[in-house]
């Protein structure tokens, strides 16, 4: 469906630490998932986990600080869709997040965002910035 000569699409957004930023990232992820040719279910899950990344950046990273920005980048190549969300907060340790599938984790009302990213995306990477944290979400394109 897509030729290898297809030009790469790339977009970078710098957004405030507010809840509308979450909606913007979700909408842009949906747009790119559709451009990538993912089926509706995959596109919906992909936009949802992008939303989770934005929620984490706005609420947990930047703590809605008006002096801090969220940077979201969307890159589409013939091989994959890559979405990166970075904040300017204190950073976080992904290994410290409790397992939401454990008996005590199942009934917790929060703590499923990172888990869903890992379950739905092909690759999830975390990088500490100074200051802040960056999450990279990668979904490979099926070229059957």
């Amino acid at each position: 469906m897509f030729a290898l000569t297809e030009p790469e699409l790339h977009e970078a957004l710098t957004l405030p630490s507010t809840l509308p930023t979450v909606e913007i990232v979700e909408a842009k992820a949906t747009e790119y998932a559709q451009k990538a040719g993912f089926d509706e279910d995959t596109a919906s899950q992909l936009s949802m986990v992008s939303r989770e990344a934005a929620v984490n950046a706005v609420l947990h990273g930047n703590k809605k600080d008006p002096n801090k920005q969220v940077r979201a980048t969307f890159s589409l190549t013939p091989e994959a869709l890559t979405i990166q969300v970075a904040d300017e907060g204190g950073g976080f340790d992904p290994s410290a997040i409790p397992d939401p599938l454990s008996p005590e984790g199942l009934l917790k009302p929060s703590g499923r965002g990172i888990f869903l990213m890992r379950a739905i995306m092909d690759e999830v990477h975390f990088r500490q910035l100074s200051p802040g944290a960056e999450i990279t979400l990668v979904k490979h394109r099926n070229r059957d």
Partner: protein
Amino acid sequence: MSMNVKIRHVGGVTVLDLSGRITLGEGSIGLRDAIRDALAAGSKKILLNVADVNYIDSAGLGELVGAYTSVKNAGGDLKLMNLSKKVKDLLVITKLLTIFDVKENEPDAIAAFA
């Protein structure tokens, strides 16, 4: 688009027809308020009809868990019905399908409260 809740009473069961998005913010607060109001009104048998829920995020999943816990703690029983493939997939991935009592349709769900 946020979430809407319509309330019906069928055979002693309070049915909450949810539609739209259960996400961080208004959507999840709407569900929380509806559960609180139903419990305050004395409902012990609560059925969530999620047929028209087209989107749910981790905050929304958390609200479903919160609803389950609130109803259980009040001595009641909460069930789900009419899960779309999208919602069911999320409950499978997160293993929440193991804690919720899920029914395929309303007659089965109502009968299961007896």
